[in-house]
């Protein structure tokens, strides 16, 4: 009898617990729904429609997926999604956009990618949605909460060679990245190595780390693809030339073989060859990141927010041992970092544009982005209110004993999308990266390889009809 009662009690307890869990989740969902219903927008105006979202593998993507049922409940819109690694993602994306069949309604994109899509007239300007009171509650959505530099990075007037920051807005940023130097403070302190402020000093520091600690002095992306060029290497080159150099002259002639660029390339490749990891030429960003978090490198010059990974004690062997600093500069002593934002845009050919915009508005709302940052380490926030949230400040403020936030704040004073806007940016980067391999493997001198790359890019630009 007693045992049976015990069994019953247990069962009832279990049921209660389950109900508690359900009501807990319910409460969270109710809270979310009431948050979104504050907006003076009819969320259900597109109920019953379907969307397919194209997503790149990314912490932001991970943060979005569990919330999709919530979006369905709010709007009555069905959501399917495709998630792929970056290179495959962009291949599929361009294929779909080019056929104008509108398979993807909402896409994950960013400034340099937009240049390609806008030139081909594949994506929608978002201003018409933003300014439509039926679709957007501007006072609630607060576009002004986004960092102005990030919004203007996603604007372009469509003129090849200029006009970034002008004209229509093509995508809403979900995160920000600029490029800084992360170094092993423990090793630097132990062997009295100076934190570098010039490229020559960086090469020396890398040499010292390798000599004393027996690990590669520096890791960097090295695969022969555009992904290797835009971050640490590109920002370093821009800074090395005091912001003077750019990859095209005023008449859209490639200038990769500019003497300053050649000199920088020589120094960089020598450094990587001498003190870098042996498999540099096959390194993706995740390989570089993994090597650094595994304690297998002294320095890395890449996206600032990789710090979220370096500083995660569950995954990283170097959490708490890292210092952050600006990228080495040129004679002027000022840093010019690049800037990138992952952002959400809308396919021009989609039939359900209103539904697509409701999704973008929901996915970039303050609450959603806050959840992405706190719950899924989606750094750096694109909204100021998220960055300034005390919880976020506490997490980011602890990185590098406070040096992280300070470094990023200084970096952002001058960071911008400095590439010349033209639709062949990706191709240009691929050709450029291949030139670095020619130098690394000593098939050509830097001057020869970069001259060859410039000629090749000029050919592509001409073939694409961007220049006579």
């Amino acid at each position: 009898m007693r045992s049976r009662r015990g069994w019953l009690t247990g069962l009832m307890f279990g049921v209660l617990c389950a109900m508690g869990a359900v009501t807990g989740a319910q409460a969270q969902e109710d809270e979310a729904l009431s948050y979104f219903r504050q907006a003076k927008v009819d969320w259900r105006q597109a109920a019953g429609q379907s969307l397919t979202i194209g997503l790149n593998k990314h912490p932001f993507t991970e943060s979005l997926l569990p919330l999709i049922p919530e979006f369905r409940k709010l709007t009555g819109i069905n959501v399917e999604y495709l998630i792929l690694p970056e290179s495959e993602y962009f291949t599929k994306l361009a294929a779909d956009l080019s056929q104008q069949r509108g398979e993807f309604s909402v896409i994950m994109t960013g400034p340099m990618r937009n240049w390609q899509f806008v030139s081909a007239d594949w994506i929608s300007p978002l201003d018409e949605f933003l300014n439509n009171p039926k679709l957007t509650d501007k006072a609630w959505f607060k576009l002004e909460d986004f960092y102005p530099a990030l919004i203007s990075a996603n604007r372009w007037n469509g003129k090849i060679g200029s006009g970034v920051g002008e004209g229509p807005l093509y995508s809403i940023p979900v995160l920000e990245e600029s490029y800084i130097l992360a170094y092993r403070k423990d090793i630097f302190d132990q062997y009295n190595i100076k934190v570098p402020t010039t490229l020559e000093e960086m090469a020396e520091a890398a040499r010292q780390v390798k000599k004393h600690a027996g690990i590669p002095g520096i890791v960097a992306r090295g695969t022969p693809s555009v992904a290797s060029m835009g971050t640490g290497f590109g920002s370093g080159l821009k800074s090395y030339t005091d912001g003077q150099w750019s990859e095209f002259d005023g008449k859209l002639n490639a200038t990769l073989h500019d003497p300053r660029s050649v000199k920088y390339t020589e120094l960089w490749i020598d450094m990587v060859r001498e003190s870098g990891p042996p498999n540099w030429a096959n390194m993706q960003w995740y390989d570089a990141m993994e090597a650094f978090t595994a304690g297998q490198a002294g320095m890395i010059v890449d996206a600032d927010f990789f710090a979220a990974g370096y500083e995660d004690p569950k995954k990283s062997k170097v959490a708490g041992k890292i210092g952050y600093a600006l990228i080495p500069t040129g004679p002027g002593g000022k840093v010019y970092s690049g800037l990138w934002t992952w952002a959400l845009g809308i396919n021009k050919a989609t039939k359900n544009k209103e539904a697509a915009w409701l999704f973008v508005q929901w996915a970039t709302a303050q609450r959603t982005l806050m959840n992405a940052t706190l719950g899924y380490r989606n750094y750096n926030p694109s909204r100021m209110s998220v960055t300034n949230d005390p919880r976020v400040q506490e997490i980011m403020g602890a990185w590098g004993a406070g040096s992280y936030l300070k470094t990023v704040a200084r970096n952002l004073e001058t960071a911008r999308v400095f590439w010349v806007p033209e639709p062949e940016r990706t191709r240009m980067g691929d050709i450029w990266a291949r030139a670095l391999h020619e130098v690394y493997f000593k098939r050509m001198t830097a001057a020869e390889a970069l001259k060859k790359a410039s000629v090749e890019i000029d050919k592509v630009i001409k073939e694409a009809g961007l220049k006579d």
Partner: protein
Amino acid sequence: MTGRRPAGGESARKIAVLVGAAILLLWTVFPFFWILLTSLKSPGDMLSVPPKFVFSPTFDNYAALVMGEQRGDYASTRPDFPRFFLNSIIISFGAVALSVAAGIPAAYALARFNFPGKDALAFVFMSFRFVPFIAFVIPLYLLYQKIGLYNTHGGLILAYQLITLPFTIWMLRSFFQEIPSEIQEAAKIDGCSWLGVLTRIILPLSMPGIAVTVILGFIFCWNAFNYPLMLAGRQTFPVTVGAIQFISYEQVLWGQMAAATIVAALPQLILSLMVQKYIVRGLTMGAVK
């Protein structure tokens, strides 16, 4: 001759043979063994230097593969592996069924009739075995996007005919040709139509050959990678394409990739042991019996 050799030479020969066999086995089997070990490792054991042979095994990589969820330290990329597995089965079965349905009459015609253009036609079918896939996948890709076959099982089944149809026709032809034509002539004299000859004599007598063709065709479809890479989407990816996606934003998920490798390879490893006598014949499209 060997009998007159001194005993020492004989045992040296034996040792050499054993060493040779051991090297051959190691080279062949070790990768499987190592991947199996890798798939049973936790992330910590995975990265240990030197590599560990002894560790406490875990099935979490397989669990993450099936559930596609975050499980503690096991980051997952939600690649929907069970769905990919089902896709592989659907596409492979569909492609083989279509090929066999079209291939039996075609092979019968090529094996038993003389008609103008026969050799040329057989050669045209054979030549598809050797085409570079890219020459077909570029136009197919553009075409499929236009007519809505992109990312559909049906579209993939049609594209897979490039793999299975030439193979099926040549294999079946070689099996049909093995049946003595006297039996067929005798049946004709008894008043059997061509259809009767096909259904009452040729098909029953070559049932084992058809079974082999189906199984090998299934394996070749299962192994296909490049057509689905370009022509499939998330709803239709087969396991071969699914297995390369174990790259998260931050790292390559070696453990899950290894588990996926094992799961993707298992069905046709079993199937291939079933038809091992015929594999060489299948791979040469019936040229070597």
